[in-house]
């Protein structure tokens, strides 16, 4: 499989992916626009680590593509558009966010053709007493018969952060499968108690729960998991 690495040093605004590919995206302290065109039948895996960014990324996905995105964002206000433009296009999008300041993450998922599938999991740890907002719009157009849209949004407030989730789902076809969920709160007290009865301090419990919350759903290989684990461990929570 082809591999591509995009970071701050690469001055690029459009990528056309016409064969199976692994792309690693690593942006820091920047505001960038990136348009990724995925050509028919391609399998694409994106491993995205963003730190303090205000990026706009657009994915245009063609017929019979399979796209998996694992994105860890630290203190970002990114906007992501996913256009499932043709039949049988399929995306699994796992976004995990560690947030320190007032930020919002906008995501627009557009089902533009039939038999398209999206599975969206957005998890955020809001660390301080700041604001964080998920704005997630799902649109299923009239022609998108037999499409499936599943969306799960969760924000865990570690302190007294003000968090919002705005999940919008606009459906213009009766023969589709769609669901969305939203949770804002803290970790379950019973989980913490159970772990503490085994001798783990509150900090150790939170550390394990944060890692599992942010990485548990992602589709990662061992190397990627180790990278993300070490990033999360370094973040002071």
């Amino acid at each position, binding site marked *: 499989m082809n591999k591509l690495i995009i970071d701050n040093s690469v001055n690029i605004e459009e990528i056309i992916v016409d064969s199976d590919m692994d792309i690693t995206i690593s942006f820091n302290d920047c505001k960038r626009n990136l348009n990724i065109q995925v050509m028919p039948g391609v399998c694409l895996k994106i491993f995205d680590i963003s730190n303090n960014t205000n990026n706009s990324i657009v994915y245009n996905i063609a017929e019979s593509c399979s796209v998996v995105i694992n994105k860890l964002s630290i203190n970002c206000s990114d906007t992501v558009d996913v256009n499932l433009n043709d039949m049988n296009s399929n995306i699994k999008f796992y976004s995990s966010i560690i947030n320190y300041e007032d930020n919002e993450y906008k995501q627009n998922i557009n089902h533009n053709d039939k038999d398209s599938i999206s599975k969206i999991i957005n998890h955020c740890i809001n660390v301080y007493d700041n604001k964080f907002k998920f704005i997630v719009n799902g649109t299923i157009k009239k022609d998108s018969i037999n499409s499936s849209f599943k969306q799960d949004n969760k924000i865990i407030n570690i302190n007294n952060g003000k968090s919002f989730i705005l999940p919008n789902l606009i459906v213009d076809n009766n023969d589709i499968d769609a669901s969305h969920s939203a949770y804002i709160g803290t970790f379950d007290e019973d989980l913490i108690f159970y772990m503490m009865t*085994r001798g*783990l*301090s509150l900090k*150790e419990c939170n550390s*394990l729960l944060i890692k*599992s919350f942010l*990485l548990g759903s992602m589709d990662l290989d061992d190397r990627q998991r180790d990278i993300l684990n070490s990033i999360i461990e370094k973040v002071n929570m």
Partner: protein
Amino acid sequence: MLKTENLNVTVGDKKILNNFNIDIKDGEIHAIMGPNGTGKSTLSKVIMGNKNYNIESGNIIFDGEVINDLSTDERARRGLFISMQNPISIEGVQNSEFLKTAINARRESPVGLYEFMKTIKCAAEELDMKEEMIHRAINVGASGGERKKNEVLQIKLLKPSFIILDELDSGLDIDSLKTVCENINSYLKENPSTSVLIITHYPRILEYIKPHFVHMMICGKIVKTGDYNLAFDIEKNGYSDTFTISENEKNE
């Protein structure tokens, strides 16, 4: 080992433990039986320092130290352990990683990976647990029996000196109960000063782990104490009759 002195505990406005007294010495096995809602599980959670319960008065003393103000993790690191009635599942937290963190919380230097894996695999084998359970998220997708075995696996690795078994027998079939109890008995044989508090509704578990004392608990306090045979009296006569017979005997 563990003693409670006139322990009064409330949840909100409701009094759950009412001048509760028990004295469990090193190496002793005590069993508490009582009807539903009498405060048995509350007692176990209070001993472990669950913040949802308020100690209005009285003390919990462990190894001569009043532990009322210690946090749950501090109590656990001093040697207290509870095997939960309904062990919860924790999505995404791997059993082995969790146990390694728990072991390291008790040590000055971290346990070696080889030593840890060898110990956990051996303990799992003794419990007839599938090896994949070690690497799975804690209790996710596990049956009631597998969850209880996982609790005993934790006992074998964390080596507590005081163990609370809260309805260990619920969710276990006869064979699994036997396996689990054999493992606890062999742990007690290897660690003879370890004390156990068994909370149960049925005497069946007491046939495998023989208690030195059986207490009957009603309305947040112990109303009768006896030996192993008290459990069978309770099973035969029920709680109210056993208590009434006992009161009548006292009056006569």
